[in-house]
């Protein structure tokens, strides 16, 4: 589903990504771990078409990122730190706007169902500026999946969420996986990574230093590998 070959990204004089090679199969849920400044979010932004790579090739579903941006964007659902939502709009208005841009059919009904799915039906028509961080993140999740994306790109999605919102987010990821969606999740939360992902990639200094599968939600194994690659050396 995603093929990355010799990907580099330079900003000013700093090399943020130093030749990343990565292959992700359709339906895989992959956690990207690494220390701050390792290049995890940059990798995700390159995939989300927000940043142009300096060199290398990125293929999503066989389509070249440089040549087929619009087609690739239709496949992607991106959830960064920020909500990407309009404050003075209600959840319904936000989702209808983004749904329209993605060309979603019967967008209003779809938006109502999504708001219901994230447990905020009661606040359907309230402006989101009055919402708590957890409530905004729930609507942000709904926004990211309003067009049923085939690839979900999540940047630290669990940060600042309460248990209810974490469980909703995990359910969304699992249900998207059941539908065949591929998920890439940048995170510092090993517990969530072990719980919902089937593969972990560790990024350090702009390079992938480890790539392994998780079995039986083994949190200890993930932590051990991380310490070995990141903290053990530094």
């Amino acid at each position, binding site marked *: 589903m995603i093929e990355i070959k010799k990907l580099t990204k330079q900003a000013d004089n700093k090399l943020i990504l130093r030749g990343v090679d990565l292959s992700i199969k359709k339906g895989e849920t992959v956690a990207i771990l690494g220390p701050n400044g390792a290049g995890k979010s940059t990798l995700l*932004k390159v995939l*989300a*078409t*927000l*940043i*142009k790579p300096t060199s290398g090739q990125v293929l999503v579903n066989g389509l070249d990122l440089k040549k087929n941006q*619009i*087609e690739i*964007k*239709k496949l*992607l659902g*991106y959830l*960064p730190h*920020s*909500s*990407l*939502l*309009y*404050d*003075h*709009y209600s959840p319904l*208005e936000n989702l209808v*706007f*983004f749904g*329209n*841009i*993605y*060309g979603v059919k019967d967008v209003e009904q779809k938006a109502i169902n999504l708001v219901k799915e994230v447990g905020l039906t009661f606040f359907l028509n309230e402006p989101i500026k009055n919402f708590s961080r957890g409530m905004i993140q729930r609507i942000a999740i709904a*926004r990211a999946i309003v067009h049923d994306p085939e690839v979900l790109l999540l940047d630290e999605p669990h940060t600042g969420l309460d248990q209810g919102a974490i469980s909703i987010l995990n359910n969304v990821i699992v249900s998207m996986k059941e539908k065949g969606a591929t998920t890439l999740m940048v995170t510092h939360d090993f517990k969530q990574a072990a719980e919902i992902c089937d593969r972990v990639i560790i990024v350090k200094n702009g390079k992938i230093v480890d790539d392994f599968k998780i079995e039986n939600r083994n949190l200890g194994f993930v932590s051990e590998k991380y310490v070995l690659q990141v903290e053990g050396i530094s």
Partner: protein
Amino acid sequence: MNLFRTALFLAKKDLYSELKTKQILTTQIIFAGLVIVVFSFAFDPANNTTKAVIPGVIWVIIVFAGILGLNRSFISEQRNDTMQGLLVAPMEAASIYLGKFLANFAMMLVVEIVSIPFLFLLFDFKFLGSFPYFILVIFLGSFGFIAIGTFLAALAANSKSSEMLLPLLLFPITTPILIGVVQATKIILTNVEKLSSAIAWIQLVTAYDVIFFVVCFLLIDYVLEV
């Protein structure tokens, strides 16, 4: 086709936001009203020479009220990084530009529809010139000013001092448009016998509008990269 469809959704979103928040249009109309009132105190409407000031006042209103709107246009997309939401959506950068341009242009037209009759009323101005040509000049001047302004607002939005940067970038580039439309407005309102000169100015402004609209349309992709 998708380009225009998404641009219209974006313009509709901006106009609906404005309807809800009333931040930009209210400020623009209040500013226009203040300018008209101050000028009406400064120049005696009974004096015939006052009529010569009117073309200048019209464009002072359009330029400065326009900048108030343009400044907010892309800065409003920084809250919650909503610009990223637009950039990851399946739409061309040109579509974002077109959507923002349409919303800014629509708001500018509303300001003009409210303020120009108010100006004529307060200055006791009897319209004797060519009304269709007057409308055409206002339309072309506003089109060019907003087209270039929207592009530069996108450019300036990434700067920390964008509110200062936008006028600095905008005035040198839009000077030919402003000279052309002020001259054409003056001829149409006060000296309609020289209409051929006004038409020459209109042709210059039209050519400038088309060239800069196309250039902005093509270059916006480089400006909007995160």
